[in-house]
């Protein structure tokens, strides 16, 4: 129907639906008028009144019949048909509550899982920042280094130039995550904050509920603007919602900051995975990060930035402009920018927050929940098929009295719609309760402070409605196929069926089961692969001991320590700890491996190593105290460790790792040779084995160490090798710390193993989710298999009875049913294997040292699937075996 026709026919359709009785009355009046006119015409022709009337009625036909035909011609409007189908369908479902509840439950699980994952995708990846305006135009901006795939930070001067030169950008702003310690009693608590450019709040259009945000110019200068904007939650929890908060002060990093504003409730900043509690302007960067004044240093890269593109500008267009600009920077500032470019990332690919590591998990989850949904649909379709068979009598009767097939299909689709609408409502509820559940899957310690909200916005709900319609189509179409086989005489024919009967219906149901088994098998394989790689990643040696090493920190910055005081404190504490029983060694280091902090990096130069023209070797390093390598158990391959006298007065030294030795000295022992670090030549005193630095999944990379005292850090981490329990160690350390200074507090004490566990938590989340959903899928397909087998057994009681009467033993029948169940399973596993072989490579990044085609893991998935199948078939088989031939045959 085209629009014009709709326009002309709408008034009529409207009237015939909403004013049905009036339309009927008019019809009647019109027909009676016709009769009257015909009668008077007939009388005029000379008939008697009686004759005239009869002739008129004869020529017109029965008024009532015509009225009915007119009503048919008017046609039920679509809505009218639908309402009728809806009422009827609802009654039908109400009449078989067991079926309906089971079907709705299956769909609730399937749709709920989908909606939950959508809401996570939305809340974490697509619209991650509540209250932030125009996220569809917001892109992450970071640096790239030639030859490296991961993103890097930008420097402040580069950022300012970019903001000035990017004409396709509306605005660009800086955020850089930071933290500050608040001492609460004996322990130090870290609050999460952001160092931002002054235009931050204006750019994202977040307005304070109290006070003001930053003014232009507050991000200029060195530590010149100690002002802070705090979050609503921080204001509530920490300041008890004090309405007079503006102008009060808060000590952050031992600097008194004036509180100038409070952000609105529900604003969590712009860092995926964390709830930001305070914001300070970029001018305070040095206070928070240390390491000197960086706002005029093009080589100091610390910035996470974002840009709004102008409406209608594509990422590719903007990228082109930005790349050209970065090339100009390379040209103008070769010393700092050689081999570096600038790149735009979609929010969900942001390299400097947790989006990057959650993206692959959520991608896999989308596929997994789609599988679960399909399995649930197949189950419901199967249930509907059974009902369609039970209702074939009703269907045939409706066909016989003149319903057309299309109408029957509409009716079945309506029932499907009722089921899937209920399932969707349930699913939305499930998703609503699960929307913040992602963080619960993280181990405590990692989960604490992590903020991974789901978002149930219009887009998510629209997506669920889409899924609902899709489900309707799937589950409605399956039984609708059956109406093809219906004919009016159908129910009159005798029913004959057998366990191995292969009529249309049985084929269809079997196909559905095979489909379900295939999908669950794929999920099982996926879960097995992920589980194995988690196992591998957690048991692989990181290159240092994970047992017996504890890590903590002392809140020196919050207590106002400067570098010389911190150095003295560090030396004294190490001396005291070394004297304690149970403590084998202790050492400070600026960064803990696999921890939350990132390593500094430095451009290097090596005698005899000629970098290619566009290569600027830059290598990460760590600043470590004496005995660090021994404390962590990193094997020394050559030379010596740092000693106490490798301090600020001694010649500069460094230790390199094996990969660095292989690359820059072609495997020659470099001890005694020199290395240029940050423009200074340092002497190499040792070579150590490779270990993991930032992630368990990383491949060996060049790395070196410099003495902590030659490149000091005010608040390094404390590593302790101990034979005692964590609690004992912590108590001992706290006692020694307090013996030196009562005002100091200790950070959380954890083992390095715990550190490894936290670092691998994304893998854990993936494994947990896939296992939960894989288990769900397994149960759903077991239910499907069970349903098909029990139905087949129930349908073929007569045949089973006959077989038994003819001498089949109970175990023959048991085997008959089991073997059919296993044949279906086998077919499903076969299909599943083929598809899984193609699909598992998509797990890509989530797999660690596991082949996506690992035969052992495929085998174990097969075992699980087979056991489940046997369990699902056992009850029907047992029932078949207990068939009482006398009773069955008598019936």
């Amino acid at each position, binding site marked *: 129907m085209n629009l014009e026709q709709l326009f002309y026919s709408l008034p009529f359709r409207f009237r015939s639906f909403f004013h049905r009785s009036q339309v009927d009355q008019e019809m009647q009046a*019109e027909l009676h008028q016709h009769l009257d006119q015909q009668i008077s015409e007939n009388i005029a022709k000379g008939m008697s009144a009686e004759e005239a009337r009869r002739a008129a009625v004869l020529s017109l036909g029965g008024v009532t019949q015509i009225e009915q035909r007119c009503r048919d*011609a*008017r046609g039920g409007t679509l809505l009218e048909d639908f309402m009728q189908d809806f009422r009827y369908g609802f009654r039908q479902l109400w009449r078989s509550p067991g079926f309906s509840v089971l079907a709705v439950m299956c769909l609730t699980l399937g749709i709920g899982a989908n909606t939950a994952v959508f809401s996570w995708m939305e809340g974490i990846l697509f619209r991650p920042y509540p209250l932030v305006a125009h996220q569809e135009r917001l892109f992450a901006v970071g640096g790239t280094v030639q030859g490296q795939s991961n993103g890097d930070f930008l420097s402040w001067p580069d950022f300012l130039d970019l903001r000035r030169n990017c004409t396709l950008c509306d605005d660009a702003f800086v955020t850089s995550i930071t933290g500050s310690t608040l001492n609460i009693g004996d322990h130090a608590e870290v609050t999460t904050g952001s160092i931002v450019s002054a235009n931050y709040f204006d750019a994202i259009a977040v307005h304070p509920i109290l006070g003001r945000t930053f003014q232009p110019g507050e991000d200029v200068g060195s530590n010149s603007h100690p002002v802070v904007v705090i979050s609503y939650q921080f204001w509530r929890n920490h300041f008890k919602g004090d309405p007079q908060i503006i102008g009060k002060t808060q000590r952050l990093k031992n600097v008194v900051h004036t509180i100038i504003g409070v952000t609105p409730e529900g604003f969590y900043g712009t860092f995926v995975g964390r709830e930001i509690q305070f914001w300070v302007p970029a001018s305070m960067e040095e206070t928070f990060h240390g390491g000197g004044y960086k706002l005029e240093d093009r080589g100091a890269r610390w910035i996470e930035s974002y840009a709004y593109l102008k409406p209608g500008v594509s990422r590719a267009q903007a990228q082109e402009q930005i790349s050209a600009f970065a090339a100009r920077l390379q040209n103008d500032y070769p010393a700092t920018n050689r081999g570096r470019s600038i790149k735009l990332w979609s929010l969900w690919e942001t390299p400097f927050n947790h989006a990057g590591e959650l993206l692959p998990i959520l991608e896999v989850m989308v596929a997994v929940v789609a599988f679960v949904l399909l399995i649930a649909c197949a189950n419901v379709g199967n249930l509907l098929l059974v009902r369609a068979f039970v209702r074939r009598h009703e269907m045939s009767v409706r066909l016989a009295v003149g319903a057309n097939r299309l109408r029957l299909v509409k009716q079945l689709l309506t029932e499907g719609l009722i089921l899937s609408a209920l399932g969707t409502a349930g699913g939305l509820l499930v998703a609503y309760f699960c929307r913040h559940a992602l963080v619960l899957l993280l181990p405590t310690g990692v989960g604490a402070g992590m903020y991974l909200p789901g978002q149930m916005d219009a887009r998510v709900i629209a997506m669920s409605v889409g899924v609902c319609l899709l489900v309707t189509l799937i589950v409605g179409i399956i039984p609708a196929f059956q109406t093809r086989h219906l004919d009016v005489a159908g129910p009159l024919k005798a029913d004959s069926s057998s366990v191995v009967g292969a009529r249309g219906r049985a084929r269809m149901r079997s196909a559905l089961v095979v489909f379900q088994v295939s999908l669950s098998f794929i999920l099982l394989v996926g879960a097995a692969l992920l589980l194995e790689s988690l196992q591998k990643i957690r048991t692989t040696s990181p290159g240092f001991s994970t047992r017996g090493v504890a890590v903590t920190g002392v809140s020196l910055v919050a207590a106002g320590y400067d570098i010389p005081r911190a150095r003295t404190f560090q030396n004294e504490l190490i001396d005291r700890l070394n004297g304690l029983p149970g403590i084998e060694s202790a050492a400070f280091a600026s960064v803990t491996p696999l921890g939350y902090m990132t390593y500094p990096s430095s451009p290097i130069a090596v005698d005899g190593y000629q970098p290619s023209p566009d290569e600027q070797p830059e290598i990460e390093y760590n600043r470590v105290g004496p005995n660090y390598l021994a404390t962590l158990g990193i094997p020394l391959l050559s030379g010596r460790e740092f000693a106490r006298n490798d301090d600020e007065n001694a010649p500069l030294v460094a230790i390199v790792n094996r990969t660095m030795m292989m690359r820059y000295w072609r495997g020659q022992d470099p001890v005694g040779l020199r290395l240029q670090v940050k423009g200074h030549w340092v002497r190499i005193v040792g070579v150590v084995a490779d270990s993991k630095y930032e992630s368990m999944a990383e491949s060996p990379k060049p790395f070196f160490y410099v003495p902590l005292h030659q490149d000091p850090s005010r608040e390094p981490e404390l590593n302790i090798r101990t034979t005692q329990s964590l609690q004992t160690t912590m108590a001992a350390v706290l006692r020694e710390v307090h013996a030196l200074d009562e005002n100091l507090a200790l950070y959380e004490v954890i083992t390095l193993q715990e550190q490894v566990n936290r670092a691998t938590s994304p893998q854990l989340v993936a494994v947990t989710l896939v296992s939960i959903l894989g288990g769900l899928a397994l149960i759903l397909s077991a239910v499907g298999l069970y349903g098909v087998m029990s139905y087949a057994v129930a349908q073929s009681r007569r045949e089973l009875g006959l077989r038994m009467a003819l001498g089949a033993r109970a175990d023959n029948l048991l085997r008959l049913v089991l073997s059919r169940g296993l044949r279906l399973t086998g077919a499903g596993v076969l299909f599943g294997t083929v598809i899984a072989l193609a699909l598992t490579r998509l797990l890509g990044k989530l797999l660690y040292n596991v082949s996506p085609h690992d035969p052992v893991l495929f085998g174990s998935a097969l075992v699980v699937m087979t056991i489940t199948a046997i369990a699902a078939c056992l009850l029907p088989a047992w029932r078949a075996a207990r068939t009482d031939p006398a009773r069955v045959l008598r019936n």
Partner: protein
Amino acid sequence: MSKPSDLVQGTLDMLILKILALEPLNGWAISQRLKQISSEVLAVSDGSLYPALQKLERLGWIRSEWKPSENNRRAKFYSPTRLGRKELEKETANWNRVSAAISGIVQLEEA
């Protein structure tokens, strides 16, 4: 249903549209006019007329309104819509084309 009456069924819509295109009429008048112009060849029973009218109205080809008739009784008058007139034009052209083709074929067979 047999073929010839199918033809009549299909043509009925066009006949009604054609009649109404000349002047708006009520149901009885349409039936009289039909009898007049189509004689006995296309026997249209009055019983089929009203459902056909309903169908045409539903398609949006005609509209109806209650107006006083010649004898001052209120009657329901039908008239074609713009869409209906377009449809008539299309169908007439179609009809002419098809009937010309068919009569050509029929004559060819006889020759």
